[in-house]
């Protein structure tokens, strides 16, 4: 299974390099910045890490169920005494481990490359973990539901959330009715909840409701994917 994932892991490594190059927080040095908050640019780095973890899950899981269904690989594979759900769960869990390992390595080596020392610790991995759960769950659901394009659907959900939050937050627009706004915010990935969890951790408190909501969102779609795998006929 790991052998089959090597090119995806290479894609994650390339994405990590891109995130490093694009993340201003890694390129601010002591002589340029006077205050500690500016030096670490914690929020920006945390978001880069979270985006990397989410993207890693999307890349590692792209087509992991839909391609099997569409190309018929399942026919031989599942004639052997194995449970499809167990196999896909293993693949999902392995992807989560790989995504978080890549994120942790990025956090350590990013800091060493930028500053020559470690300035932030494991706290910065909470937000990536929640993002990995959210986008891992969404990708799994789309992969179980759609014949193709599952990864693109997850990426679309990411950008749709960003646009929605910009419209309703920074732009101050209030489109649609309050109920519809609530429904849309509920269905889209919980970026705000993840952000709240991170802010709470930086402030020294654990915002359990926000953390559980974000994790629950990802696990809900993961459970929906499991239900689809279990109940849908194979083509």
């Amino acid at each position, binding site marked *: 299974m790991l052998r089959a994932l090597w090119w995806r892991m290479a894609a994650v490594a390339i994405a990590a390099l891109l995130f490093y190059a694009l993340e201003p927080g890694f390129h601010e040095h002591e002589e340029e910045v006077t205050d500690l908050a500016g030096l670490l640019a914690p929020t920006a780095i945390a978001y880069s890490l979270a985006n990397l973890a989410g993207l890693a899950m999307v890349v590692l899981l792209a087509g992991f169920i839909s391609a099997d269904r569409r190309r018929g690989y*399942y026919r*031989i594979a599942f004639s*052997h005494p194995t*449970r499809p759900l167990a196999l896909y769960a293993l693949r999902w869990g392995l992807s989560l481990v790989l995504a978080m390992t890549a994120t942790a390595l990025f956090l350590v080596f990013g800091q060493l490359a930028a500053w020559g020392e470690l300035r932030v610790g494991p706290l910065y991995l909470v937000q990536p973990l929640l993002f990995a759960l959210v986008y891992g769950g969404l990708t799994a659901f789309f992969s179980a539901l759609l014949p193709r394009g599952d990864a693109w659907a997850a990426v679309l959900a990411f950008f749709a959330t960003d646009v929605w939050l910009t419209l309703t937050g920074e732009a101050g627009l209030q489109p649609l009715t309050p109920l519809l706004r609530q429904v849309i915010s509920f269905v889209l990935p919980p970026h705000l909840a993840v952000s709240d969890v991170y802010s709470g951790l930086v402030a020294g408190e654990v915002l359990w409701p926000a953390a559980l909501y974000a994790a629950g969102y990802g696990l809900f779609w993961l459970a929906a994917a499991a239900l689809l795998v279990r109940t849908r006929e194979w083509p």
Partner: protein
Amino acid sequence: MIRLTEVVKDYAGPLARLRRRPVRALDGVTLRVEPGDAVALVGPNGAGKSTLVRLLLGYLRPTHGTVEVGGLPPRAYVERHGVAYVPDVPAVPPGWTVRGALETYAALGEVAEAEARIEAVVERLGLAPLAERRVAALSRGNLQRLAIAQALLGPRRVMVLDEPTGGLDPEWTARFRELVAAWRAEDPERALLVSSHNLHEVERVADRVAVLEEGRVREVIDLRAPAAGVPAYRLEVEDTPGVAEAVRRRFPHAVAEDASPLAFRLEPGSLAELNAAVAGLIGDGAVVRALAPVRPTLEERLRAGRGAP
């Protein structure tokens, strides 16, 4: 071992469901494959053969009726015991090597002593020179051999073959039959179900043939059952002086074959009559080269069943 009882399978997308216009692939199919049985499914395209095979593997569920394999719902049986399955179009990830594919399938099936088992099937299927080749680079026939190899990895009690010799050359088709016969001989309780258009192959592999037409079992032909009456015989004699007249004397209704004046079709009333006449013929100085019953081929029986000439 395999039991289908009044199985109906409808295919319907959401729109067809709303309009209540599903496509009925199987319509009340009842079929039994007992331990030790080898049953073939034959029928025209669209008769429902592939649907039936997929029901047996639990990839589809019946709309009505029940499907059981080893007393369990098919998916439960497959997940617990596995089925030796060769699909009509083998799909294996193209980036895998032949050996890598077999290792993966052996791992999925938790095959005991996997390495030795893989070596054995690689050897038996002549895949050794291709073992490190990627699946994408395999010909259709070699891919089919890989599909057969993976089916032989584990100690399964049920084998399901869907057009298993597609793409195989005549030599490998013959060796495939030997492999299936050897697989059955290893355990007399093993059950085989094969779906094929190749009637010649079906006759050699199966004990019974279920003829599917428009989603229904039209008839089940028992290939191993003895003929009901005395069959016709084909007699071939050596070319000796007056032999044709001697044959006609002993068998007044003998019909000479068009292609060979020394071969005759005989229709004796009984075995005793046949034996007496042949003894008389030999007594007359004729030399018998061959005497064999003429049984209708499966193709002839199917055509007769359809009322075709």
